[in-house]
């Protein structure tokens, strides 16, 4: 019922990101929580891979683990066959919170900062790349402004530009648009897709909104609630027409809520 986007030029044999039987646990002051249990999936180059699930399914924890902030207690995470052992700029993260920008740096300095501290690009190169990234997210005019003067959507654009300018292997986005108002969120989703059309980067996108998953993703991993286990992996795509999009949403909704006692009236899972 859904048609995957065709990518004849890509070698599907070697996944860019290989998550294999990963169990994640973290400690709260009172409990040891198992966030995900034996989750496996593969992400290939240029995919827009969405991890979707209700609150508490461990999707953000999974993203943190891929980011290298949390070692799995079982299983392994590999990027291009290299075991993930800690945080690194080959996996740039974009967070939901606006605090991810450094308030003591201008927009431009924020974007050049990771390029400078990692030493991957020299200063001149970093500046040029930053300017071009800011241009892509339509923020050229604001490059010398401090983040506190920007709106939420603009801050998010800076964070995306900062991550993209690094050209990471994979872009990790943790509910990046959840803190935005509905109109801005819609616009940002479209902009993200527009950027993807231009640059064909690989992105791993965590969300709790079925609607967002269907719009943004090319492939959607549905996790079951607490602890997160793989429930389904579905194809979506930019070229889906509205009826098949609705059908896909309906199908995901059923996957997530068929066991639920009372069906939620909202499409968005909160």
């Amino acid at each position, binding site marked *: 019922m859904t048609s995957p986007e065709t990518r004849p030029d890509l070698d599907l044999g070697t996944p860019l990101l290989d998550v294999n039987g990963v169990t994640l646990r973290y400690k709260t002051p009172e409990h040891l929580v198992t966030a995900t249990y034996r989750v496996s999936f593969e992400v290939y180059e240029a995919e827009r891979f969405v991890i979707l699930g209700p609150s508490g399914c461990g999707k953000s924890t999974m993203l*943190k683990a891929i*980011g290298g*902030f949390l070692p799995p207690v079982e299983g392994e995470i590999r990027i291009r066959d290299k075991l993930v052992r800690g*945080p*690194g*700029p080959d*996996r*740039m*993260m974009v*967070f939901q*919170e606006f*605090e*991810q920008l*450094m*308030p*003591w740096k201008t927009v431009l300095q924020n974007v050049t*900062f*990771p390029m400078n*501290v*990692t030493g991957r690009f020299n200063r001149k190169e970093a500046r040029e790349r930053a300017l071009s990234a800011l241009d892509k997210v339509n923020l050229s005019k604001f490059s010398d402004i*401090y*983040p*506190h*003067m920007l709106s939420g959507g603009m801050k998010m654009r800076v964070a995306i530009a900062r991550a993209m300018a690094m050209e990471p292997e994979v872009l990790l986005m943790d509910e990046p648009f959840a803190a935005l108002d509905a109109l801005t969120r819609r616009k940002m989703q479209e902009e993200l897709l527009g950027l993807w059309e231009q640059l064909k980067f690989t992105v791993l996108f965590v969300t709790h909104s079925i609607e967002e998953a269907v719009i943004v993703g090319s492939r959607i991993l549905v996790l079951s609630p607490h602890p997160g286990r793989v429930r389904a992996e579905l194809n979506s795509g930019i070229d889906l027409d509205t009826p098949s999009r609705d059908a896909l949403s309906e199908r995901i909704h059923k996957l997530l809520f068929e066991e639920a006692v009372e069906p939620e009236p909202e499409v968005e899972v909160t």
Partner: protein
Amino acid sequence: MTQNMDMSTKIPLARPEIDQEPTDMEGIGVVERPLGFADRLMGNDAFRRALFLIFLAVAWESYARYVHNPLLFPSFLDTITTFWTDMANGTLIQRTYTSIQVLLLGYGIGLVAAGVFTTLAVSTKIGTDILTTLTAMFNPLPAIAMLPLALLWFGLGVSSMAFVIVHSVLWAVSLNVLTGFRSVPETLRMSGRNYGLTGMRYVTKILMPAAFPSILAGLKIGWAFAWRTLIAAELVFGVSSRAGGLGWYIFEARAELYTSKVFAGLLAVIIIGLVVESVIFKFIENRTVQRWGMQR
């Protein structure tokens, strides 16, 4: 029930819609104009503060004249005259210079120590626990209480003074800086670590600027504590080196019942405090936390 029935009869009335050209602007006068001189003057921080200082001086002068007891409460003008005379003959300048030398020495060592301690403490949980316990133990301990010990260890002199100042600065600043480090948002920390920043680079490039409002508050508190401790220490054991400092100046004046000189000495302490706060710290604040929108 009756209320419910009332409610059911309340439905929105069908009112006519409005679609009109905006009101003609001719009568408005101005849409935007620069503020007048008086408005801008009152908007100026320095001016408002100066106004308040003048008010204080006038209040002081009138009260002193009302009491009319120069031995206990010299007037503002007397104090200023004494202050000016001793400035002119160099006494006050010499004393202030002596004090500030010791002060900067103690303050500087205290800040460096606080920087080292907090940097070490913030990287591990145990380190944080240790520093938190140490500050809880030593911060409430008055520096003056350490003075006898300092005299035993270092004898009468600059080292003893510096020691008590370091003690008063170190714990207060450490407490502030550590609190600042710990309140850096998790997202910002993760961003920093995402770029592979660790150790010293992580502290200097992420934690320090992110915690700068707290650090600045710590610097201010440390500065005030250093001053207090210095003056108190000088008052207790007088001459610290060849020449006495401001505390000694006040002490001498008291012994001679030269009250306007006591006031002049206090005034010198206050003026230095005001200048440091409103010039140096203000400058740092404008250039950093205010520009970054971390503080209004």
